[in-house]
């Protein structure tokens, strides 16, 4: 056992209101610079939909993430090192600006400066790249928001393409069948990050102390292999600096115990941030299991229980400090992922072992159920049966569990059970213990889970240990005052680099 610690995130999609505040606060703080006009470290997508960049989840096209070879090894989908070296100067798997969108602005000054004329002045749209007029804007980072244009665009959602064969009836993009939910996305800060392995310059790294994956802005040579190999398309190319940039998990904040901007500004209160301990020795194995349906359980098993004395001892031995261990024990993320098992990984089939997990959304009952006059007295009926919900479970499973519907259904049932249990409490009635029992939890556990999902105060949602770099010497190393400081420039703090392909045989 080789315990390592990572700051991980859980987003409860059932609470996401799709407001995009996270996107705006993130962009204002990090990417409203020249060269990053089109870059959104955090974005929110309406599903079903194509996402940003378009159809990013189609790895047949983009070749992101890992694949398991017949011999059981993991290999970057982008190909082996030789192929990647061969395509260094003409990477065929890079999204173009059209796949993202051509950032634009308007000739705002005309509103003030327009000379006397014959009509009301207007600010005409122009490209931020070329300065040329864009009279009819064609695509944006959130073009299909709220299913706008869905009849035309949503059928090209790679997940829709996958599940249509199974549940075509449910996905017809017709009024009565309408369903949607939002998916906010940041970098997954994976345990097995393809971007790190793909970088020819070794510029991407995963910090040992908190697992944050970063691009070294000095080392980066702009090869963009990280861009293509990231299956989530969360590494971007800054066209002004010629370097790659990505979500930093707001490390300047996280290091001092503050939550990321996207977390703190989440108006839906749906983000949770906390420590996860994992066994570094299990990562490769977990990422390479044969059956894709086993990827979620395998990753789940690679996490370590911080309350387990053996884990505690091993963690200390590997240099994890007490405050981190304590944070791990109080981690809301751990509880959502492990204790209540309501959070699931995003596209585990990419085999990068992502560390931003999601609670799947409930949805209104389908038209056929709604139209009926079934008995409202029945607590089970009040919230609709899981199989009667609008969002097809198969669709959620393609997103979160490599297509296995069982874990998704289990989560939705647990949420429904919590609501039924709490309704009794709400009305001052005695909850039926069978409800909790049916999802293999006790009533008390359901109530704890309820508090975490509903009440969770600021300090319950974000448990971020300070002193991420408890070692004062090391602190000196990367502090901005460094430049002026005559001592302590070396040695640096450790980081992890993944080599590709992994060398472990099964």
């Amino acid at each position: 056992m080789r315990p390592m610690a990572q700051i991980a995130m859980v987003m409860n999609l059932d609470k996401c209101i799709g407001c995009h505040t996270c996107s705006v606060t993130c962009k204002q703080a990090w990417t409203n610079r020249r060269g990053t006009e089109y870059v959104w470290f955090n974005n929110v997508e309406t599903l079903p939909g194509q996402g940003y960049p378009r159809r990013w989840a189609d790895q047949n096209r983009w070749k992101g993430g890992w694949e398991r070879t017949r011999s059981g090894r993991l290999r970057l989908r982008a190909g082996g090192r030789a192929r990647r070296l061969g395509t260094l100067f003409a990477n065929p798997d890079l999204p173009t600006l059209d796949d993202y969108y051509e950032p634009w602005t308007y000739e705002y000054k005309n509103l003030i400066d327009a000379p006397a004329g014959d009509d009301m002045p207007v600010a005409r749209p122009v490209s931020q790249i070329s300065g040329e007029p864009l009279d009819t804007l064609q695509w944006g980072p959130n073009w299909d928001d709220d299913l706008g244009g869905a009849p035309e665009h949503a059928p090209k959602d790679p997940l829709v393409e996958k599940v249509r064969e199974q549940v075509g009836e449910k996905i017809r993009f017709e009024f009565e069948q309408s369903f949607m939910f939002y998916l906010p996305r940041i970098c997954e800060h994976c345990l097995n990050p393809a971007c790190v392995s793909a970088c020819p310059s070794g510029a991407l790294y995963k910090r040992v102390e908190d697992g944050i994956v970063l691009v070294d802005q000095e080392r980066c040579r702009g090869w963009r292999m990280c861009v293509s190999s990231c299956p989530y398309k969360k590494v971007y190319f800054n066209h002004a600096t010629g370097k790659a940039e990505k979500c930093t998990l707001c490390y300047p904040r996280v290091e001092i115990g503050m939550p990321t901007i996207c977390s703190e500004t989440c108006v839906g209160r749906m983000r949770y941030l906390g420590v996860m301990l994992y066994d570094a020795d299990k990562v490769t194995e977990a990422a390479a299991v044969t059956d894709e349906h086993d990827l979620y359980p395998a990753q789940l098993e690679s996490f370590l229980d911080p309350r387990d004395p053996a884990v505690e001892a091993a963690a200390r031995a590997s240099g994890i400090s007490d405050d981190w261990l304590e944070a791990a024990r109080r981690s809301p993320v751990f509880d959502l992922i492990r204790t209540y098992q309501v959070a699931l990984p995003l596209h585990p089939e990419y085999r990068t072992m992502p560390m931003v997990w999601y609670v799947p959304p409930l949805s209104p009952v389908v038209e056929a159920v709604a139209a009926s006059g079934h008995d409202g007295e029945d607590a089970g009926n009040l919230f609709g049966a899981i199989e009667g919900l609008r969002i097809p479970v198969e669709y959620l499973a393609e997103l979160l569990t490599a297509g296995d519907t069982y874990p998704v259904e289990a989560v939705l049932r647990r949420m429904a059970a919590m609501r039924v249990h709490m309704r009794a409490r709400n009305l001052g009635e005695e909850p039926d213990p069978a409800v909790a029992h049916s999802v293999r939890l006790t009533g008390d556990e359901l109530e704890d889970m309820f508090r975490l999902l509903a009440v969770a105060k600021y300090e319950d949602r974000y448990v971020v240990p300070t002193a991420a770099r408890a070692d004062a010497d090391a602190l000196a190393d990367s502090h901005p005052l460094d430049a002026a400081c005559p001592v302590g420039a070396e040695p640096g703090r450790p980081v992890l680099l993944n080599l590709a392909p992994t060398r472990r045989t099964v």
Partner: protein
Amino acid sequence: MQQKQGDDPADLLVRAGRFLTRDSFSEDLRTTTRTDSRAAESFYRDRWSHDKVVHSTHGVNCTGSCRWKVYVKDGIITWETQATDYPDVGPDRPEYEPRGCPRGASFSWYTYSPSRVRYPYVRGVLLEMYREARRRLTDPVLAWADIQNDPERRRRYQQARGKGGLVRADWDEAVEIVAAAHVHTIKTYGPDRVAGFSPIPAMSMASHAAGARFHSLIGAPMLSFYDWYADLPVASPQVFGDQTDVPESGDWWDAAYLMMWGSNVPVTRTPDAHWMTEARYRGQKVVAVSPDYADNTKFADEWMHPHPGTDGALALAMGHVVLKEFFVDRRTPYFTDYVKHFTDLPFLVTLKESGAGLVPDKFLNARDLGQDVENAEWKPVLLDSATGDPVVPHGTLGHRWSKGAAPEWNLDLGDSDPLLTLYEDGGDAAEVALPRFEEGAPGIVRRGVPVRGVGGRLVTTVYDLLLAQYAVARPGLPGQWPTSYEDADTPGTPGWQETLTSVPAAQAVRVAREFADTAERSQGRCMILMGAGTNHWFHSETIYRAFLALLTLTGCQGRNGGGWGHYVGQEKCRPVTGWATLAAASDWSRPPRQMIGAGWFYLHTDQWRYDTLPPQALASELGESRFAGMTGADCLAASARMGWMPSYPTFDRSPLDLGEQDIDRTVAELKAGSLKLAVEDPDAPANWPRVMTVWRANLFGSSSKGNEYFLKHLLGTHSNLPEGGPRCAPRDVTRREEDVEGKLDLLLCLDFRMTSTTLLCDVVLPAATWYEKHDLSSTDMHPFLHAFTPAVDPPWQARTDYDAFLAVARRFSDLARGHLGVRKDLVATALQHDTPGGEMAQPGGVALDWGKGECEPVPGRTMYDLTVVERDYTAVGEKFAALGPLVDRLGVTTKAVTFDVGEEVAYLKRKNGTVRGGVADGRPRLDTARRACETILALSGTSNGRLATQGFHTLERRTGREMAHLAAEHEGKRVTYADTQAAPVPVITSPEWSGSESGGRRYTAFTINTEHLKPWHTLTGRQHFFLDHDWLHEVGEALPVYKPPLNMHRLYGEPELGTVGEGREVAVRFLTPHNKWAIHSQYQDNLYMMTLGRGGQTVWMSPQDAEAIGVRDNEWVEAVNRNGVVTARAIVSHTMPPGTVYMNHAQERTVGVPRTEKTGRRGGIHNSLTRIMLKPTHLIGGYAQLTWAFNYLGPTGNQRDEVTVIRRRSQEVQF
């Protein structure tokens, strides 16, 4: 285990290479651990670093009032994130933090944006004229007059409005022009020819009060906005006698059943939506009612999608189920007890013979019974269930204004148990005729009610009438009753509503049953969040009354977790008394002129001329043809004559002239017809408004329903209004043959960004943004007071609204010397709500028009109150900047509770300092926004525990009920401005509002009524189902009733919905719901929001409609109707119902809008396709709760019933 030599030659390199580095490798060779310098990490740390963080908020009409951290680096505002320091709301519920939305998060973009107004601007052509005249004549007022007296020059600059050519001026010159225009107008026409428009004081109270104070001091009317925006739910004054009072969002958590009905919570209540998502986990069931698959439906357990505007039918059918199952089939003690105490259901109503049989008439009152008691005709009666005798219960309007010593204005029923129904086996019954309004149906339905003779009259109860109206049968009653829930032919049933709404009857029944069952089990914890989707219709109050009936029948009003959540407009200015005092300048003179916005715009943009809708078409078949021959303008004029609604300009003569003569003489002249009301000839040049100031608003790019009429008639510039078209034929109002263009001499606005309004203005003053000033904000959504605090000083030449108006006021006073001096101003005010004279002016709600010889003109009774106000025009600047002495003498008043503020004035003298010398010598200073904020807080009960407690003691004397304990815990607390800057401050429970925050409780409306038995401000003192005013009977709205959306085809000649015309165009319902990427027009031009949306004007439409006109997603379309033209791109989505398009509210023409194909001119805004339609019943006044107050009651600027023809246009666009 190591693998064999790899098949990838690169492996070898790695393998070899590892021995050449200092890096360490994991056992499986998967990872390298490297320890070289991470100095590059400083890149993002530098980016994050900042110098200071300042807390402020946003002054936009969004109900947010969110607290934000504004980051400053090197003196530059960089970005903002939400503050998380809200006071704790308790251990078992979520907190308010963080509050905010993407729009607010993008605000700092404006600070340095290229569309920022940095300097004063004047329309170039006007500035040249002014400079020339000023050189020639020296005197600024004469220079302005010189231009105005020359029709050619006046026309020239008017026609240049909105067409560029703004040039920089300096502050002194711009302010001089503004001041000169005001002086000239007042001198020539009178102060009521000036108008100010600035909405929503709650969103920045000092900034609002600054301009309002200037206008009040000079005697200029301020235009109302809540009703103009159609955000005012007219049902609220009708039912509650209250403008609007609702639960804070934290109280959603307490609800056990939640319906979101026409309120898209995640989009329009973004900072509060989490309460709704979280309350679901507490076992709350959520139902979304929306015609499209709106954002909020995602969170619902069920989605009901009635056809747009038919929600009232669904609510009535649900009420049918509730009444049948929970009142008639089974008596529900909780419900019965509630309605007996807190509603008018047990009260007696007389029945009278009409041509069509018996119809409900008026409430039976004590005078009808021959009782010789004070205010007898204002005391409705009920029967005692034990004795069967008539009882005059406490708490009626007559008790409210009683001068008697015994406090009887309370809801204590004593020993009497009101009789709810007169029904008994074998009892008397009579058939009454009730109106119905479904298209194509007969206009009358006949149903029996149990009756009795009381005081020589045939009466029944409101409850019995309600059962008849809702089609709930009881054995033995005559008339037409449904056979079952599914009976589709009988109005009122679930089956009937299905034919109108498309909502399955079974679903309506089930949801109604769940709703009432939950209300019974939870004792009233069912809530309906209702919003603009159901409130902006012509007949919205009929929809709302059906909603409110559901809530009131089930005992949900005045209960935490229950009741109506009407969140449309940030109407709750919590420290209302202090704000109102400053804004109305009632510390110096009373009364102020305050005007109904919709009435003003309807007249002065000449929309009345085009309004061919005959009010008689709205009448019930049981009506008495009261509106025969009348037009909308005639109704407005009648309302003005009868003193119901204010009207400015009031007379066809200057009120400064009338102020010099005896009031009796003025009345005599009116009666004789030698003096006329201006509303009776609105197009006469003497009756035009001449100067208008807009601040904190973008009237011309947002709320201007009938936008093109504004451009043509009010401003006199180009418009997209079709030429010609039919005009109305008024009965009483003079319609001049020629259209008038260009009424306004001056349009002034203050803004920090370029909008349609600034583009159209003659003078634009650069305003400070919300991160550059001191101010206060509050909302109905949370109970906290927030401060604005400058993160930086106003950059360039920007000034705060407060400083700008102070400059204007001072310059105005200078110029007034020699032109105006001290004058007497005759102020005509409408009969006023919450005053005995106003509410008891017109007994029985009998409409008598002295202009038609139906009664004598008696000021304050059958017509306006008339007051002479002395105005020292040379002292306006001095008075602006000091708290005047009237507050010492008369106190300050809200909702008829007058506060003695002697101690507060003494405190303010010390806190703010005192003025030395001049007319305000020794008075507290008000020369800065900060001091204004301090004054607002000191003069309001919500922020001053002493006043709150004092006010409750006043109410205790009037009601005989204990209440002061509600505020006593904070009696010594005085919230200062610095407190509000440091953190959000919870307000103190105060008689200014109807609910309680005592003990940290979540606020909900009317708990003081239900728990402390304080009556509602209505005729019966209870919540009303029945309204007996003549005009309400005329339109058939005495009881909740279903009225379909207006038939624009029949009424205005628009194509019938669904008509597919030549050249592939289709007629569709045109709805303008609030925008996800903007708050009204604010943020809609913001690059972040434009980028997250589609970057310009869009129209959402269904695939079916898109198919009909051959348009694909993102292709350009054009929408045309009799009011104007819009060009936009289509968003095609299956979430839209066929036959309806959405153009999200307030998408401006300033950004990315090309010229139209139809006219070749710039495309319009959403309101280019709408037009004001006045509903006569909104004009009622002088009768109990139906009595005017500012933003409390008035005609709404509704716009939902509109239709348009839409077609695909050329995809080549020209800008």
